[in-house]
């Protein structure tokens, strides 16, 4: 067999003898052929990279959930958690609701999330309308100060708010809150609305600013006020933006720990959030890690459902906002 024939692509198929030089030649030419192929068809390389990256991302994001499931399946007191659960016993998910009023804990958190979202969308829409569609003096400084405010760590505001809500101190020497807010939903809803507002305003400003003036003019000529045009025409047409702002707010508040934990009591009846529900499986002497894990998994469900339902809107909302400003 000549060298020419051995280096020929087809030669390897027939070459059963497999001497060393032949193998090297084969390997080189295979890598070279891949390289050639990928240079000619870059989409193949992208596909491989996509699968690889996707695999990494999926593993890092889904493995914790799988681990949580494993912990939930392990019987109480079991010292090590195997990679594959020894037995599948779904009754822990029911036990979660039997042992503590977990449904009420979840309701409390969902209530906070829902209330704050509605409030933020309403007020944020008015602000977004003003920033996105009106020209007025001091618009840029105002928008900028909003941005600066959103950089403040919320924790720094906890102590003053705690005093104001708890002890009814005179605020700025001007007024005292009429009732003790601490321990009521207002103590969570008010500060969280303030913290989630800037992002919502920015998203809504971008979207409302893109609606053509003609549509608003048409609505006003047809018989709405400016506010009416906002809610009847501008908001429906900005649905992706409103959905994005709403869902981001909802998730932020639902998963919020610091304020909702500290501003309320520890029992479900005292408006404690879902975190308190998870921690309720911990007593002075025992910790039911399996029930805590199961409770955590249950707590994820509402947000997961919301995201699945609204994912189209969120994606179009986020990318649209990103492209236009």
């Amino acid at each position, binding site marked *: 067999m000549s060298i020419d024939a051995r280096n020929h692509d087809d030669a390897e198929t027939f070459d059963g003898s497999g001497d060393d030089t032949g193998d090297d030649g084969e390997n080189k030419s295979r890598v070279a052929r891949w390289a050639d192929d990928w240079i000619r068809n870059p989409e193949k390389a992208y596909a491989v990279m996509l699968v690889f990256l996707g695999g990494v991302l999926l593993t890092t994001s889904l493995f914790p959930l799988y681990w949580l499931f494993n912990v939930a399946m392990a019987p109480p007191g079991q010292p090590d958690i195997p990679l594959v659960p020894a037995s599948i016993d779904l009754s822990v998910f029911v036990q979660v609701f039997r042992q503590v009023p977990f449904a009420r804990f979840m309701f409390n958190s969902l209530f906070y999330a829902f209330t704050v979202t509605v409030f933020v969308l309403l007020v944020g829409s008015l602000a977004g309308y003003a920033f996105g569609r009106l020209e007025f003096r001091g618009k840029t400084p105002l928008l900028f100060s909003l941005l600066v405010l959103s950089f403040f760590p919320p924790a720094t505001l906890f102590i003053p708010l705690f005093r104001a809500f708890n002890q009814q101190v005179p605020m700025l020497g001007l007024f005292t809150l009429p009732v003790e807010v601490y321990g009521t939903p207002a103590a969570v809803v008010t500060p969280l609305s303030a913290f989630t507002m800037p992002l919502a305003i920015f998203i809504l400003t971008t979207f409302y600013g893109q609606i*053509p003036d*003609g*549509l608003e*003019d*048409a*609505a*006003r*000529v*047809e*018989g*709405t*006020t400016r506010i*009416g045009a906002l809610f009847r*025409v501008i908001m*429906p*047409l900005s649905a992706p933006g409103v959905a994005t702002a709403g869902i981001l707010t909802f998730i932020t508040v639902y998963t919020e720990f610091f304020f909702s934990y500290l501003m309320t009591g520890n029992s479900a009846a005292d408006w404690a959030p879902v975190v308190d529900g998870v921690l309720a499986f911990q007593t002075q002497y025992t910790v039911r890690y399996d029930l805590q894990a199961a409770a955590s998994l249950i707590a994820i469900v509402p947000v997961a459902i919301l995201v699945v339902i609204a994912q189209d809107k969120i994606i179009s909302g986020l990318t649209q906002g990103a492209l236009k400003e």
Partner: protein
Amino acid sequence: MSRVKLTDVTKQYDDVTAVDNMNLDLNDGEFICLVGPSGCGKSTTLETIAGLTKPTSGEILIGDREVTNLPPKDRGIAMVFQNIALFPHMDVYDNISFGLRLRSFPQDEMDERVEEAARIVRMEGMLDRMPSEMSGGQRQRVAIARAIVRDPEVFLMDEPLANLDAKLRVNMRTELQRLHKQLDTTIIYVTHNQAEAMTMSDRIAVLNKGELQQIAPPLTCYNQPANRFVAGFIGSPSMNFFDATVGDDTLDANGYSISFDATAIDGVASGDAVDVGIRPEDLYLTTNSAEARDPSATFAVETDVLEPMGDEIFVYLKPILDPDDGGEAADFEERQGLLMSVDPATDIGEDEDVEIVFDRAQIHLFDDRTGDAISHGVVADANVEAVDDGVQAD
């Protein structure tokens, strides 16, 4: 159906005056076109009437009500927009009935009115379409249906045909005129297209730089323009202009000397500098000079470029350079030459020496400084006619 009256309406944006002391008095049922070049304040004027913009000063009356400070919804107006502005998230029915729903009309009356409006604009059977599923012309018809369904006192139209293609525009123009005949409602129509204004309106209001130049029936604007701006804006192709000096019994301009009697015309005296305007169709070849009502003397010129339009030919003329007076002739050529319109059957070629006459009855004289019209026609009787019915802006 209502009259509309604007008194001293001014709109200022920071240091720009968009509308300057506008006075308009529109009759009930009239079709008025506001025309002017871009940025002349015609859209702003319309917006102040609609209530979308508040005037800096002045007063607006619709019917007998003062509406200056009322929001748009309380003015009894409907508007059709340049960008059509149908609500994209609503179907045709919802778009048309939007204003009725806001006013809580009973369902059966609403159905009836929507169907009637859709019938008028020939959109029956398409009430469940979405705006994205329709052509430009259909959308514009829906927008018009949305405007007529509420039976408004005044229609405002802001370049409603500007975004349509040329053929559709001509169609819609006819439909709008038919609609006006049918509804007999006051229509205020903004356009920068003087052909639209000429063909559709009862009266044209010509605006420039925020000021009303002239408001008059189309033919009056054409034949007796109040000033140089109106003369140049109305009519396509535009009127020819050149500088001239008034002599004792002639009008002298760059080699043209047109005989006229300065004493018979008010406002000019020998030695005055004036702007002379003459439309392309009021220039004649000497061979056709019989068609002119009052032909002037003959002038030798050279043809430059021909633009055959089918029903007429536009001929660009340049003066023949006079070796004795080369400077002035060159200057004249630099200014613009003359444009003449001739019958398509005329035997004429490029770069030919021809002789032309001016129709003296159709020569317009404008004040050199203010641009105001002095006379339409430079013969005594023509001028009398012009003074009689020239409706001029104050």
